[in-house]
C-alpha cells in the first residue's frame, strides 16, 4: 500500500511538473460553470465545434510559444495569416491544385518567419519592434496584391481540411493535435528545444556554452511562420475565402493563449501543453458567453478578466509554492 501511494505521488508530481498544468484549474472551473448554466454546452457536437474553433488559434499559439520561450514575440502573426490565405487562395485558383496551395502557404509563412528571425538574431533589434514592423509591412503587402478585395477559393476537396470530419471528430482538431505533438517533441525531447529554452533563459550564457544562438532564434521564428501558415490553411479552408483584412489582432489572442497556458512572457519557461489548454479556454469562453446569452460587450469584458485572472492565479500559485 505504501508503495502505491508513493507511485501515485510521483506520477502526480511528475504531472505537476509538466508546464501548463496550472491552466487546467481555470479550464475545469469554466467547464463546470458552463455545464450548469447552459443546456447546450456539454453536448458532443458543441464540444467538437469549440475544439474546431480553437484550432486556428492553437496552431498559431503553438508557433508563438516557441518565439516567446526564446524571449521574443511575434506580433506579425495576424498579418501573416492573411498573406498566407491570399497566396494560397491565388495558387489554388490558378492551378486547381490544393496541395500546391498548401505548399505556397507554408512557403509564404516560412519566408516571413525567416526574415523576422534573421533580423532579430543578427541585427539584434527587439523582436517586438521587428515584428511590429512586419505587422504593418505584411498587411500593406496583402492589401496591395489583392487590391483589398477578397479572393474566393474554387475547390471542393480543399474544404474538407477545415470543415470535414474523421470518426466524428473535426479534421482541424487532428491538425492542431498533430502540430502540438510535434512541437512538444521538439521542445522537450530535442537539442533544438533545449537551446530555445536556454536562449530565453539567458542568451549570453547560452552563447558562452557554444550554442549557435542566431541559428536557433531563426528556427523559432521560422517555426512560428510555418505554424501561422498551417493555421491559415485551416482558416482558408473553413471560410473558402481569403480576406486581406483577416487575422487582425489575432496575434494578441495567440499571446493570450500562450500566457494563460503558463508560458512566461519573459522567456525561458513554458510549454506547448499549457498553450493548447489556453487556446481551448479562450474558445470555450467565447462559445460559452454566446450560449449564456451575454451580449458581445460583456464578451470582451469577460475575456479580458479571464486573461488577467488566469495569469494572476498562476503567479499567486507559484508564489505560494515558493513559500512552502
Amino acid at each position, binding site marked *: 500500500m505504501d508503495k502505491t501511494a508513493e507511485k501515485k505521488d510521483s506520477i502526480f508530481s511528475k504531472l505537476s511538473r509538466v508546464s501548463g498544468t496550472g491552466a487546467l484549474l481555470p479550464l475545469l472551473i469554466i467547464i463546470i460553470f458552463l455545464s450548469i448554466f447552459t443546456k447546450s454546452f456539454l453536448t458532443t457536437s458543441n464540444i467538437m465545434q469549440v475544439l474546431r474553433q480553437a484550432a486556428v488559434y492553437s496552431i498559431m499559439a503553438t508557433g508563438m510559444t516557441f518565439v516567446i520561450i526564446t524571449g521574443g514575440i511575434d506580433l506579425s502573426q495576424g498579418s501573416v495569416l492573411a498573406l498566407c490565405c491570399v497566396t494560397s487562395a491565388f495558387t489554388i485558383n490558378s492551378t486547381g491544385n490544393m496541395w500546391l496551395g498548401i505548399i505556397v502557404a507554408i512557403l509564404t509563412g516560412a519566408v516571413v518567419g525567416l526574415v523576422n528571425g534573421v533580423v532579430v538574431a543578427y541585427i539584434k533589434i527587439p523582436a517586438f519592434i521587428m515584428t511590429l514592423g512586419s505587422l504593418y509591412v505584411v498587411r500593406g503587402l496583402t492589401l496591395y496584391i489583392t487590391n483589398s478585395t477578397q479572393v474566393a477559393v474554387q475547390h471542393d476537396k480543399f474544404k474538407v481540411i477545415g470543415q470535414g470530419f474523421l470518426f466524428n471528430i473535426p479534421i482541424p482538431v487532428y491538425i492542431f493535435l498533430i502540430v502540438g505533438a510535434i512541437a512538444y517533441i521538439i521542445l522537450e525531447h530535442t537539442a533544438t528545444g533545449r537551446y530555445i529554452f536556454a536562449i530565453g*533563459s539567458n542568451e*549570453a550564457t547560452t552563447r558562452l556554452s557554444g550554442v549557435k544562438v542566431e541559428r536557433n532564434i531563426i528556427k523559432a521564428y521560422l517555426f512560428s511562420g510555418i505554424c501561422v501558415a498551417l493555421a491559415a490553411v485551416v482558416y482558408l479552408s473553413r471560410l473558402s475565402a481569403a480576406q486581406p483584412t483577416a487575422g487582425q489582432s489575432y496575434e494578441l489572442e495567440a499571446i493570450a493563449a500562450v500566457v494563460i497556458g503558463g508560458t512566461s512572457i519573459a522567456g525561458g519557461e513554458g510549454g506547448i501543453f499549457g498553450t493548447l489548454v489556453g487556446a481551448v479556454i479562450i474558445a470555450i469562453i467565447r462559445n460559452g458567453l454566446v450560449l449564456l446569452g451575454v451580449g458581445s460587450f460583456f464578451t470582451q469584458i469577460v475575456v479580458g478578466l479571464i486573461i488577467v485572472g488566469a495569469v494572476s492565479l498562476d503567479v499567486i500559485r507559484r508564489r505560494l509554492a515558493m513559500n512552502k
Partner: protein
Amino acid sequence: MKNQDKPTPIVEFKGICKAFLGVKALDNVSLKINKGEVHCILGENGAGKSTLMKILTGVYTADEGDIFINGNQVDICDIRQAQELNIGTVFQENSLIPHLTVAENIFLTREIKNSIGLMDWNSMNKECIEWGRKLGVNLDPSITVNKLSVAEQQIIEIVKMFSRNPHIVILDEPTSALSDSEIENLFRIVKEMQKQGVTFIYISHRMDEIKTIGNSATVLRDGQYIATIDNIKEIETEKIISYIVGRPLDEQFPGREAEIGEVIFEVKNLSVPKVLDNINLQLRRGEVLGFSGLMGSGRTETAKAIFGALKRSEGSIYMYGEEIDIKGPHDAIKHGISYLPEDRKEEGLFLEKDISWNVVFSSLHKMKRTNLLDMKEEKRVVEKYKTQLDIRTPSIRQVTKYLSGGNQQKVVFAKWLYAETDVYIFDEPTRGIDVGAKSEIYNIINDLVTCGNAVIVISSELPEILGICDRIAVFHEGTIATTLDRTGATQEKIMHYAMGGDISG
C-alpha cells in the same frame, strides 16, 4: 628568466592587444604556458586577465597579435572553435542557464541522443551522477539550476567543464564562491588531471591558493605584461604582491584605533521560517562584527532580514535602545542601516548606468533643491568620493559595467557611504577583489568605525574575518553557534563551530 631549451609551449600569446571604447585592456601581451603546468595569471582588478582568457576562448577577438597552440598558429573566432581545440573554461561570470536542469546544462551542445534522435535523458542523468561522484559531489541531475545556491552552481560549472575532457583548462576565479572543503576537492581534481597531462590556466586573487596549486605565473598590470615567475612556490608572497600592485604593500590588514562604545544596535529573536532560527546580536559603536560560517549557513539571510529585504516571521530590531519598525529596505535606511549585497552585479549596481548615477541613487533626497535634483551637487559629491576611494576611471560619467570588479565594488561603497547611515552591513565586500583594493576597502571600514559607526562584515575568508573583526559570530544552519572575541579566535575554532561542533568542544 626564460628557458630556451624547453619544449614548445602548449599555449603561446604573441603581442596581444585589445581595446574597449578606447580603454586599452591588453597592450602587447606575450606569454608562454607549458604543457602539464598550473599557470597562474595574476594582476589587479582590471589588469586584463579575464580579457586575455576570453580572447583565447574566442569570446573576444584580439585587435592585434597571434595565438599559438602546440606551436601552430590558430584563429579562434568563437567559443565552438575553442571547444574543438579542447579548451575548457569556467568563466568568472556564471555561465549556466537558469531554467535548465543540471543535466541539461552539463550536456548543452553535446546532448546524448537515442536511436531516433531524441534526447536520451537516462544516459545523460547517469553520466551526470558519475561525473559528480568523480569530483566528490552529489548531483541531482533533474533540478533546475536556478534553485541552487551560488556555490552549488559554481560546482556544476566545474563539472560541466571537466566532463568535456579538455586538454587545456581555464579557471577564472573558480573559488570565489566555494567553501574551503569544496576548494580542497577542486584542488585534488586539478592535481589528478595535471598528472594526466592536462594544462591549467588559473586566475585568483587569493595568494594562499596560488601558492598551493600553482607551478608558474604571469603577472599583468594595466593590460601590460610585467613578469613571469617560473617557480611560484619558491618566491615570497610579498614579492608576488609587489609585482601585482607595482609597489611594496605595507600591511594586509591595517590596524585601527577605534574606540568601542555603547551598544547602538540590537537584534532579538530574529527568525525566518526554514532559514533562520532565533538570531540575537548586539553591535557597539566603533565595533566591527564578523559573520562567519559555511556556505548557506544563513549569514546573507540574516543581513537581508535585518535590512527588510527578506520577510521575517519574528524578531525585533533596536537602534539606540529603541525598537524600530522595518518593513522594507527604505525603512532600514531611514533608521540608519545600510546593506552592501554580496552579488554586486545583480543587487548592488545599475550596470548600464554611470558611476555618478549609482553613487547618489540611495540618497537623492539629499541633493534636492526645491523638488528638482541639483546636478551640481551631484557632481561635487561624486567627485569627492572618486578621490576619497580612489575609484580609477576616466570620468564619473563612465558606465559601471565597463569598470573592473574592484572599482565597481568601490562605487557601491561610495553609494552607501553617501547614505551616511550608522550601521553598515557589508556582505562579502572583497569577493573577487585584488590585494591592493582589498586593503583599501579595509581602510574604508576602519575609517567608518573610527568615526563612531558600527559595521558588520560577512566573509567566507577566514584570514579576513580574523584580520579585521573585533568579534566574530559563527553561523551554523541558520543559528548563531557562538560569538568569539578577536583575541580568542582561531581558524580552527571558527571551523569547529561552523561545522556544528558543540559549545564545549
